[in-house]
């Protein structure tokens, strides 16, 4: 029985893979709309001009994927559940032998601590530069935000709960919301100024929206969109890391939601 099933799965996998490879073997790439992206100038960084200029609305969607994923992670760990008996059982179960705690693990050597802190400070600085210079140099909001979040994770891994670099989870939630709302509302402002959602306006009245030297074409709202995405990515990834490492806060949350449910 089982071997027949394996056989059927194997054959269908083979047919599926062969058909995909066959269609790949006849590839003729048509440059198409990419020529338009290369010949019409918005900002010096072409990748950034596609992401935040031509296809800014897709970027909004991609960010919202991250926002929703973080919200759902919060729900998995007990935020606003209609019934949390199962989760309570799970968290109050006695620890088994393969369960790694800080006591069982011990602390890292001073060498790691000595290196981790300066490294994470530099990573935060590099992340900020990457976010702010996204429209003229390689990089942008996603990359910078991920750099800052990984600095936080590095520091938390090295120092545990005494980490010198630490964001409170409520602060992170607000940061993420600010990032997402900035992006959404900048688009609405563009709609009132230019008539289209996410219109790249370069000035309001006579005031340039992003000051730049005269030789460089001003980037309009793109740097602000970069900052919004950076905030959101940094908050989202840090929250995910935080949820995986902070059992205490989750148990507190479960108890608090119990009070509401039993009222």
């Amino acid at each position, binding site marked *: 029985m089982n071997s027949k099933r394996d056989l059927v799965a194997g054959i269908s996998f083979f047919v599926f893979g062969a058909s995909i490879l066959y*269609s790949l073997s006849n590839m003729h790439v048509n440059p198409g709309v990419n020529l338009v992206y290369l010949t019409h100038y918005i900002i010096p960084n072409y990748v950034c001009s596609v992401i935040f200029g031509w296809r800014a609305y897709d970027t909004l969607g991609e960010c919202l994927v991250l926002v929703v994923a973080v919200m759902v992670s919060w729900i998995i760990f007990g935020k606003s559940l209609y019934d949390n008996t199962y989760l309570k059982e799970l968290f109050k179960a006695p620890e088994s032998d393969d369960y790694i705690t800080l006591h069982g693990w011990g602390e890292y050597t001073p060498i790691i601590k000595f290196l981790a802190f300066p490294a994470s400070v530099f990573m935060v600085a590099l992340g900020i530069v990457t976010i702010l210079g996204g429209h003229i140099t390689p990089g942008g909001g996603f990359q910078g935000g991920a750099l800052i979040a990984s600095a936080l994770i590095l520091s938390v891994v090295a120092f545990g709960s005494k980490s010198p670099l630490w964001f409170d989870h409520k602060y992170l939630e607000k940061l993420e919301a600010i990032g997402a709302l900035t992006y959404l509302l900048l*688009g609405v402002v563009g709609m009132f100024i230019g008539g289209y959602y996410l219109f790249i306006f370069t000035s309001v009245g006579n005031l340039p929206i992003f000051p730049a030297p005269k030789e460089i074409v001003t980037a309009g709202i793109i740097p602000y969109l970069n900052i919004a995405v950076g905030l959101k990515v940094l908050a989202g990834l840090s929250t995910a890391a935080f949820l995986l490492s902070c059992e205490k806060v989750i148990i507190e949350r479960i108890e608090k939601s119990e009070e509401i449910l039993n009222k």
Partner: protein
Amino acid sequence: MNYLPMIIIFPLIMAIIMNLLHGKENIVKYLTFLIAIILIILPFIGQYGYYYFGGFGVIDGWVSGIAYYYNPLKQVVLVVLAIIASLVLITGMGEKLKNNMFVTLSLMGFASVAAMVLADDLFNFYVFFEIISIVQVGLLFLSGTEEAYKSGLRYMIMGNIAASLMLLGIAFLLASTGTLNITDMKNYILSDNPMIFGGLLLLVVGLAYGSGLPPFHNVKVDLYARSKGFISAILQTYSKFILVGFMLIILKLFNGLSYFSGTHAVLLALGVLAMVFGVVMALLQSDYKKLLSYHAISQAGYVATGLALGTPLGIVAGIFHAINHVIYKSALFLGAYIVSHKKGSDLHKLGGLLPIMPSVAFMVLCAKLAISGVPPFNGFQSKWMLAQAAMQVNMPEIAIIMIIVSIGTFVSMMKAFYLIYLKPVDEETIKEYQSRGVPKLAVFSLFILTSLCIILGIYPEIVTKYLFSYANELGVSYCLK
């Protein structure tokens, strides 16, 4: 100025604000009622035609940015989506916990399904496809049981595979045509290129996952059956309209091309298989929610078959059936939610609810007759149109299967009605029933949905007259010899 994007942007902004209001129950409650009213107004503020984001219109003969396309057909779909979403939001406020995350995720889901229906750009469609698959799992997790966690995880694993295959398909189409805009792309896929065919194949995988057609029907059924009743109502609405949006895109791109006939047969087969599998599995179930969930799959098969026929009448019938289906199936799920307040959803333990809540029983009976295709309810009108469309292209076997599946639906629905409302029970159970209340807001929503069932059953043309113009544009008339 064209306010079309506000259909998506307004719910997204409100969703992010609602996320911050955790624990402030009164504000959540009143703000939700306000949002529920505004949602119904939203589909009327846009203008018909193409909308280019950021003003990046046609440059050098290519649509350079992201485009939306709005027309009366999409407006009707969005109005129905908004009505169901706001009724479900109102019902959700009848729970003891005024849940802000439920509101957030429902609004996110509304926005992404609306974006998928409106999208005229394949990658934009994919982005919102990703959001909706995470949102559905989040809504499932809200019920917090062990089964919910397990089936959510399974749905996510399947989703990873299906959505990445679909992304690969979009990459194939982008590579061989050089654009993502659907209106533009149609001009570059006329020739029979294996790469385009591979892209189409992979798009069909995404379609089956997003709308719960076989082979993905099991994960979808678990998704509906493990959620709370009113959340299942919104979940099945999402998947029906994902199906409609996806099929509209596939038809717009490929309908009428010579090499589409093979895929055409595959789509028809998927629809027929979903119809038959759904109803056969539903006859076996002893859990009321699971029974309803399998019927949701079966009805999705009707919608897919109608749309896959590809004729103007088939497209109209498919979309009309999708609209009718979300109305009566949401009513049934709300009925299941009201019953679960009394005593679970196990059919063998329930019974004797008719004297306790006669009005609810009557409304649920109306919805059950509608799903079985009995006149004068709306299900009859759309199933009638579907059978006509199948006969028009000379495929009487599909019409026959539809009628047999309808009979199966009727049998299992009447079985469930007997076991829940009519079966005699002892005194103690009746006392237990009387000690538990009925969620009043759910009864209100149920009333509105049932009256919509009857109105659409008597006057179907208030919906169908908006569908024909775009369906004539997409459809190709043909007849098998």
